[in-house]
């Protein structure tokens, strides 16, 4: 039964209880500590703690103008001097600006400050002092964390009074991180399921000479439909289709006849697909891949160590060019440059796939079970969530 609710303004107050497999890294997660620049959903750079920036012609010297009247959790005003100390030895003050100097040209400086560098002070006891919408007020490492609203946040206090994260099962929770393979029946009808656009990629690295056998025999549609309960997308490329739009134009390779021919030509011995034991979903996918590749005539097992590795890579950025470059670094292949338009991006991604023997398998979303009393849920923007 579909129930339509009249639209309502958000309410201030309340606590959101979130169950996760592991606690977020609060120094970098954006709740407690923030960055000078942030990347929006389109991959564009937007003001964060800096409201403007300039660079020199070579991209070695970057100047950031800080947002005024930003206060840290301990009441310290975030001045250029304070920010420079927290940003580290490459940062200094020039007038009213923070300067970050690089020894080599750094055209990707904005990506670095948006994704890797937060402004936060970590004390010897592990406590964090940042500028984020929440303060970390209690931490049991690996088990539980409590964050409370920061009333003086520069963008206004969050709607929630507090956030509670737990890795323990059994207590009351409002939001639960779920494995992608969880069936709808197991979740229950009353609970909403929130699914992100695909952000993880399951990928076979280094099948090398056997690349064609694997690429042609894997039934990606079955993996996406059955193992990920239709939440995942069969991967033709490294980047998800919501980011590029051109996945349909990349080669679709499932062809068992050609796979058998390639396997016969390879004359390979038994192969083991290595998969991390801590990732049950990857194990399920690896088992399915092994079945497919055996159909092509290759002897395949799945284990903790092997010449072929099935790994999970997290999409590192909403900026497609930066994401492709980071994937290249993670996979140990040549990093593409000059990706200034969509044609260049397509050509580079296609070349990476055909020249490096890597086989993308399936794109995976994040999945959460969300109680109906929770509104505006987005794990990347918990400061905008409110509860009834």
């Amino acid at each position, binding site marked *: 039964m579909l129930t339509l609710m*009249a*639209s309502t*303004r958000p309410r201030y107050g309340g606590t959101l209880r979130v169950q996760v497999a592991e606690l977020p890294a609060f120094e970098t997660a954006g709740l407690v500590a923030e960055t000078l620049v942030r990347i929006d959903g389109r991959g564009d750079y937007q003001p964060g703690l800096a409201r403007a920036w300039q660079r020199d012609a070579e991209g070695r010297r970057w100047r950031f103008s800080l947002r005024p009247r930003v206060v840290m959790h301990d009441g310290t005003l975030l001045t250029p001097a304070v920010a420079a100390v927290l940003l580290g030895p490459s940062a200094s003050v020039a007038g009213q600006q923070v300067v970050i100097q690089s020894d080599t040209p750094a055209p990707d400086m904005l990506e670095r400050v948006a994704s890797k560098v937060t402004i936060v002070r970590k004390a010897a006891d592990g406590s964090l002092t940042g500028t984020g919408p929440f303060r970390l007020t209690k931490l049991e490492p690996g088990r539980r964390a409590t964050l409370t609203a920061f009333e003086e946040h520069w963008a*206004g*206090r969050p709607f929630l009074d507090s956030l509670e994260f737990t890795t323990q099962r059994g207590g009351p929770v409002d939001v639960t991180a779920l494995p992608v393979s969880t069936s709808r029946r197991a979740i229950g009808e009353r609970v909403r399921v929130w699914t992100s656009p695909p952000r993880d990629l399951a990928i076979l690295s280094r099948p090398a000479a056997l690349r064609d056998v694997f690429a042609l025999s894997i039934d990606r549609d079955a993996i996406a439909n059955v193992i990920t309960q239709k939440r995942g997308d069969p991967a033709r490329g490294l980047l998800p289709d919501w980011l590029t739009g051109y996945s349909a134009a990349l080669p679709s390779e499932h062809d068992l006849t050609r796979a058998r021919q390639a396997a016969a030509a390879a004359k390979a011995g038994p192969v083991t697909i290595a998969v991390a034991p801590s990732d049950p979903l990857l194990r399920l996918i690896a088992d399915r891949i092994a079945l497919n590749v055996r159909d092509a005539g290759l002897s395949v097992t799945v284990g903790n160590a092997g010449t072929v590795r099935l790994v999970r890579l997290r999409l590192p950025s909403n900026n497609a060019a930066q994401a492709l470059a980071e994937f290249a670094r993670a996979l140990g292949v040549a990093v593409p440059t000059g990706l200034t338009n969509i044609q260049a991006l397509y050509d580079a991604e296609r070349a990476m796939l055909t020249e490096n023997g890597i086989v993308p398998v399936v794109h995976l979303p994040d999945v959460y079970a969300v109680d109906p009393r929770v509104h505006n849920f987005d794990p990347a923007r918990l400061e905008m969530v409110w509860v009834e």
Partner: protein
Amino acid sequence: MSEAAKQLAAVVPGRQRISLTVENRTTLDAGAAAEFRRAVEVELSAAGVELARDAQPLRLILSENVRGTIAIAQFGSKTIVVPWNPAPARAHSRARLTMSPLWVQSEPVLDILLEGDSLLVLGPAHVASYKKHGEVWQNERSAVLNFPAPLPRDPRGRLTGGMDAFRILTAAGSCTGTRNLALTCGPQGEGNAWVTGRNTQRDAALGEYYNLADLGEGRLAVSAPGAPVRITGANTAIAVPSAGTELAPLRSACGTSWLATGATSGDTDSLAGMNAAGAPTTDAVTLDGTVQALWPAGDDAVHAIVFHPATQSYETFRVTITCPE
């Protein structure tokens, strides 16, 4: 569009015969896909390429990513990918509520003040004035709002008064201003009912509320945190669960006293006129976005500020009631 179509058509080298397949993998309608096909066919024809059923296929794909629409042409081993700008879709609204578009911009709008050929637009960080020259609004001035406190995360604000002497009321502070946008801003002060740091207002009798509409004869429609809209006064208090937190008084000769947001589905809201008993008196108008604010604009009109997620724009409408004949 034709430049992009020309680039796509260039995937076919020289004059030859091809067959054509077109895939629409976007949320655009069939008309947009047909327009895409026509644009490329025109360029192919100009390049001397003939279409034939049994020839080598040229595959055209209309797709979309997080930044917008793209178009792809594949012929043999060659692939061309270009951004594609479809013609803008026409907005649609139909009802006995009459919605006249007044203003649209990409930055958030909190309120507007319209006086003859002068317009004042209030956003979270600026106020801007415009003058109409012929059919065109031209920006005259802009002024930054220097409040002593930050606006809350769900920013709201009101413009009161007239172009020559107006007041800006928000939860971060108040400003007074004149036509040349000389502003004097400071703490909230008298007459500013916004609760500091929140998206609610406060009244001594009502407590904390989101919006209220005076329905006459001592009755008020009030939306408050955590509660359905209530009609209070005249010794009664009734709940109106079908109404959302956005509401404004709207008089008409045919029994409508107020306007409210209604049942929603995903990223769209609806508007409906209600009578003093909380019953709908008009068909609901489904919008192409979500209502950010409903503010009275005189007795017989309401300014509705709507956010359109498809275009990421804020549009203000003047809403009136057209009574049946």
